[in-house]
């Protein structure tokens, strides 16, 4: 039986009160949702909170799931909306707790180690944060989740033309955000290819 049929069956079982069926869906997609939330929010703790809230929303709205759709796309729709809501709410936050609680011991690695890790792994992640959230979303769905245009259309509710426009601008913005290095590479690639 294929994955989509499996998931449709699990949804039906979960709707009938079988918690273990929904557990299978959570186990399968925690990583996908976490990655989406982390790329959008750029904060591991906030992404963890978001993942819990997203699955809670998915659970209480499970009856709205259309079995003809892929479950992951439906979940990413909830996740995308939730992350955008969080980003909008974040604009109203004057100061984060991390800003004021700098004296507290951290469970993460030391600052030098963190800086090195960040430099190595997160240059693109930082650049991604400079994109407006609507552009960031389509870029993440396209290049990190490797989704086709029609799937991005389905998740975001945008038209294909808008998705393409946002991707086009998003690509340019990302290359610019990566600095002169990224911009030069981008220009060379698009000119020569």
């Amino acid at each position, binding site marked *: 039986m294929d994955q989509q049929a499996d998931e449709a069956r699990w949804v039906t079982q979960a709707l009938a009160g079988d918690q273990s069926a929904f557990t299978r869906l*959570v186990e399968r997609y925690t990583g996908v949702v976490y990655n989406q939330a982390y790329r959008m929010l750029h904060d591991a703790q906030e992404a963890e909170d978001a993942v819990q809230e997203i699955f809670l929303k998915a659970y*209480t709205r499970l009856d709205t799931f259309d079995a003809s759709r892929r479950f992951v796309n439906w979940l990413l729709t909830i996740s995308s909306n939730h992350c955008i809501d969080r980003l909008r709410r974040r604009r109203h936050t004057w100061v984060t707790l991390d800003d004021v609680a700098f004296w507290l011991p951290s469970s993460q690695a030391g600052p030098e180690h963190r800086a090195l890790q960040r430099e190595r792994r997160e240059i693109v992640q930082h650049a991604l944060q400079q994109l407006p959230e609507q552009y960031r979303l389509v870029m993440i769905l396209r290049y990190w989740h490797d989704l086709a245009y029609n799937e991005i259309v389905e998740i975001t509710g945008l038209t294909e033309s808008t998705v393409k426009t946002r991707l086009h601008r998003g690509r340019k913005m990302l*290359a610019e955000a990566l600095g002169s290095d990224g911009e030069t590479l981008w220009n060379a690639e698009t000119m020569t290819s």
Partner: protein
Amino acid sequence: MERRNDDELTAIEEQTADEAIRRLLARYGQPTSVAPPPDLTARVLARLPDKPPAAAALAERQRRRHVRVLVGMLLSVLLVLLILGSWGVLVNSSGPAELLGGVTSAVGQLVLVLVLAAKPLVHVLFAPGVTLLLPGVLLVASAVWLWWQLVQQTSLAQPVEA
């Protein structure tokens, strides 16, 4: 295919740009997948309600409705007390009761009791000390909230890694 504006690429241009950004990302070692914390699935499952989805959704809707009703009632009671108290302070205490059957009727006596109970509240609101008291209360409430958030964020049970 012809393009209609600068942001609309032809299929070939679209593919070229797509491949170019993928190559650019690859140079930075992206896209990569971020591993979620190992206990995240367990935490997600622990937060799910015990009820089936439909019942959980219904319970959530009811809870929200109850909260809205409760807040509405609380605000209404405060507003009524404020109006009655202000009337009692600025006009007279028996005025509202007179409108509702006089001070000898049961309803009138209840309203009179409310006016008399609300008058000290209105006096407190207009007292000069409140201007000093209010920021103090807000400061204490903010400090308590901040302390609680910090306690929640710091896991004292787990040893801190070096």
